[in-house]
């Protein structure tokens, strides 16, 4: 097996995550899907790291994790406060962007 398969897997996971973001309305699930996409990217980075034989890919994956953690913290806080004020976690409820 060629490690390239990891890349295909990452692409597949990423696509699934993206589709989930588009399809699901529950903000928490949407968030999970985003996490899935980030993880797919990390997998790709790690695979690249192995393919190229240096550690930079892993470093990037590491940073991605840190940023994802920060993002989750803020994002979940937003979801909580949104739920508090609107009693719903549906992303469609926040359709205030319409003119």
């Amino acid at each position: 097996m060629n490690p390239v398969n990891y890349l295909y897997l990452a692409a597949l996971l990423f696509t699934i995550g993206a589709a989930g973001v588009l399809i699901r309305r529950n903000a928490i699930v949407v968030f999970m899907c985003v996490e899935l996409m980030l993880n797919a990217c990390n997998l790709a980075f790690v695979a690249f790291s192995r393919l190229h034989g240096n550690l930079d890919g892993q470093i990037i994956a590491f940073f991605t994790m840190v940023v994802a953690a920060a993002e989750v913290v803020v994002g979940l806080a937003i979801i909580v406060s949104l739920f508090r004020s609107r009693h719903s976690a549906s992303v469609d409820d926040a359709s205030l962007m319409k003119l």
Partner: protein
Amino acid sequence: MENLIALLVAAPLLGAAVLLCGGRRLDAAGHWLGTLLAAASFVVAAVLFFGMLGRGAEDRALHQTLYTWVPVESFRADLAFQLDQLSMTFVLLITGVGTLIHVYSIGYMEHDERRRRFFGYLNLFLAAMLLLVLADNYLLLYFGWEGVGLASYLLIGFWQHKPSAATAAKKAFLVNRVGDIGLSIAIMLMFTTFGTFAFGPVLATADKASEGTLTAIGLMLLLAACGKSAQVPLQSWLGDAMEGPTPVSALIHAATMVTAGVYLITRSGAIFDAAPTAQTAVVTVGAVTLLFGAIVGCAKDDIKKALAGSTMSQIGYMVLAAGLGPIGYAFAIMHLVTHGFFKAGLFLGAGSVMHGMNDEVDMRKYGGLRAYMPVTFVTFGLGYLAIIGFPGLSGFWSKDKIIEAAFAKGGTEGWILGAVTLLGAGITAYYMTRVMIMTFFGEKRWQPAPDPHRAPDVEPAAADDGRHLAAGPVGSPAAEGPAGHPAGELPDPHESPRSMTVPMIVLAFGSVFAGGLFSINSAFVHWLEPVTRFEHGHPPVSAAVITTATLVVLLAGAGLAYAQYGRRPVPVTAPRGSLLTRAARRDLLQDDFNHVVLVRGGEHLTRSLVYVDHTLVDGVVNGTAASVGGLSGRLRKLQNGYARSYAVSMFGGTAVLIAATLLMRAV
């Protein structure tokens, strides 16, 4: 000596500047200042003339360069003067007649509150006209050319409160502008052909250019001449120009400005000599105008318009002569000078008559005035005899020579031209006799001053508000506009004041003797020969035969007029007349043609263009704006406010970007 040349132009220019900018303070003395400066210019001209006589024929030309007017690379137009025999002739005529008419105007315009400005304009005209004839290059000539156009515009429209005068002024300027196109294109052609447009080099090397170019230049110059000299097809403005005060008609529209076209053609003789086609065009224009003007002159009842027709016709003679080449140039100029005398005299006489007749211009309402205005009668009569070419008077000498030269052209062309000139002489005798009889002979047909509220019955354009002159009978209230003369009062004909009669007398002397003096030993021809060159024409029949024929034709014309107007009472209201007469009264329908084709067509064109600009050009832009607005309204519906929707479009966009990247890689 040559430093004096600029003074010729400067003196009247100074007068114009002072009089026009000076304001009301100069009202009292303005006309004296204007006259004085015109006279000063004449004195300078005389000094220069005698200086010129003192030199040999070949060194007579003088040059004065002030500075370079427009210097751009190879394009150099100097503000420089050239005074040779041809210019000298014109300068003397312009300043001489001009001064006389200034004097005349002092009396004529006495009661006009804007007399100062009138003299300012007259001075402006003199300056421009002198610039025209003194210029040493075509661009400077163009400067003067337009300058006289402006002065003519201002003077025709001097009584601006009359719509007819304002319209006539505008028309004159516009028609002249059409001619100016010709002059400017001619100058451009000279520049591209010769690299210069100064008289000297252009005329000296004219024969080196191709004939096609020269023909083009010649035709363009002819177009310019047609505009300024009221030749067919650009003659229509001259009749209307009679809306101006009579001294203006005498000076500008008879003696000087309208002859500028003849000057231009004569000056550019070298070009025309090398372009026979252009010459043919010139003689054709001259011949047609000669008959055209004469026919129009026969039908007009307005004395000034009859004289205007005559002017057109006489200039036709000059143009024809100028088109004949070296056999005709000198005679064209000679006729120009004698015509300047007698036509100016005739106009001043007409002004004097109008002055005494409550500004009535309709000859049918004159009659029997010889007893009331003896001086006017005599001077006008001498002018009359001169213009019809009565043997011994000025007109005879100059016109006879032109007829001879026309025959001398040779071939069929010569015969045709000769016949036309002969016919013209006959018609001239006819209409001038008619004017003479209707004005000074026969019974009195005086009419009360027309009611200002009633529409005039004859010749709307001419009789329209004919009482514009404030200068009525002595003692009548001086005022402008419709309140000039009390309605219903019979005119009280009287001789004009001294300031008006003296110039008439002087001009009458010129009318009688100038031609004869010029012809002694062909003095005039020899005087001009270094500039215009001269060849003796050889008419197919002897000169005596031609002279006899001329006299016969002349008598026939005069006799016919006498039979029609002298032996029968003249009806006060013009009879309907034949088709030709009616057409001639309407300037042979040229104005109607212009109106239908140019004015109406132009109006339609501009109106539709305004519409096009608004709806089409602007509409395209506004339509684009509207469709963008509509499209954004549609697109706005895509903005449904759901974040997921936007996410889809982002995702799709990313996909497209990746696809594009891959494609670019693949290609």
